[in-house]
């Protein structure tokens, strides 16, 4: 089972390299589409462990598959950013 609530948001943010590594995060229907400063600071295994169902990295764009709970995750992320 995936981590839920604010704990999951913190874990996802850490997996993306922390707030300092984020330019922006766009919540889509089932994914978080993030633009990061430094892709090497993204930890795909940590994102998986935080409940992501997939991580796709293309340049500075990191897509994290979350599912329909992406809405609530996005509000939790907003509180941490």
């Amino acid at each position, binding site marked *: 089972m995936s981590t839920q609530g604010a704990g999951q948001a913190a874990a996802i*943010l850490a997996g993306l390299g922390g*707030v300092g590594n984020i*330019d*922006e995060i*766009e919540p889509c229907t*089932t*994914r978080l589409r993030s633009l990061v400063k430094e892709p090497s600071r993204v930890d795909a295994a940590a994102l998986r462990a935080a409940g992501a*169902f997939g991580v796709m990295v293309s340049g500075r764009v990191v897509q994290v598959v979350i599912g*329909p709970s992406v809405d609530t995750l996005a509000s939790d992320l907003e509180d941490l*950013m």
Partner: protein
Amino acid sequence: MHAKQSPAVPARGAHKYQAVRSYLVGLVEAGLRVGDAIPSERALCERFGVSRMTVRQAVDALVGEGVLVREQGRGTFVAPRRMDFEMRLTTFGEEMRRRGMRPETRVLGMGTVAASAEAADALGTEPGAALHHLRRVRYADGSPMSIEQHWVAVDLVPGLLAAGPPPSMHDALRAVGLDPSWGEETLTAAEATDEEAALLGLRGTRAVLRATRRTFSADTPAMYSNACYRGDRYSVWVPLSAPAPALVPRVREPDDRPARARDDEREAVGALEDGRTG
């Protein structure tokens, strides 16, 4: 001046081609019915005062788009209408019945296979893990529409295929408490293989749409699927809405400052982040 005049010749050719094309599209939309023949090449040449090559170009384009279908030695006819599918987590059978059409299935193969790297990644299993596999052709009112394959982890639903191929994969998953609740699908344009073209009865065009899908039941990746839809009968429509506003960190770095200053600030932001989340 020469540079301005030279495009006029191809433009006039394009105009004639467009006229033939619009005329044919108009016939299909207003006059002709599915299966009716279009006017002969000679009749179209005479009507528009154009070469046979121009007429062929217009007809070929509409054959390629699936509006017309050419039957060897018989002529060119109005093709069956395309079907619009909204991207939803439904099955082929459910979509067909909703349209008042009769879905049918021909099972091509069924068994247990070792998970490929791709399937393992999609289903969250180890590569090589045992997966149920089902491959079948789906028909709408007797016409082949798509070739589907499904993979489900044996560990997850041991008895999935015990009673033969399930008529509905979604129903089979629901029966064991794995109600499909969300998914992701990726669509790719492609050319049919010889086998696919034969199974789908493709003539003329070999364009197909490949769909790769992961079906989840809440937090469980339940099924990995791919489908090969015939490009001449199948359209996808996707409801669009404006994207939600992006989340942006509250502390932003001005981009016009030297790299060194930005690095210093990044460390400060990092410290702030630790304080907030830790």
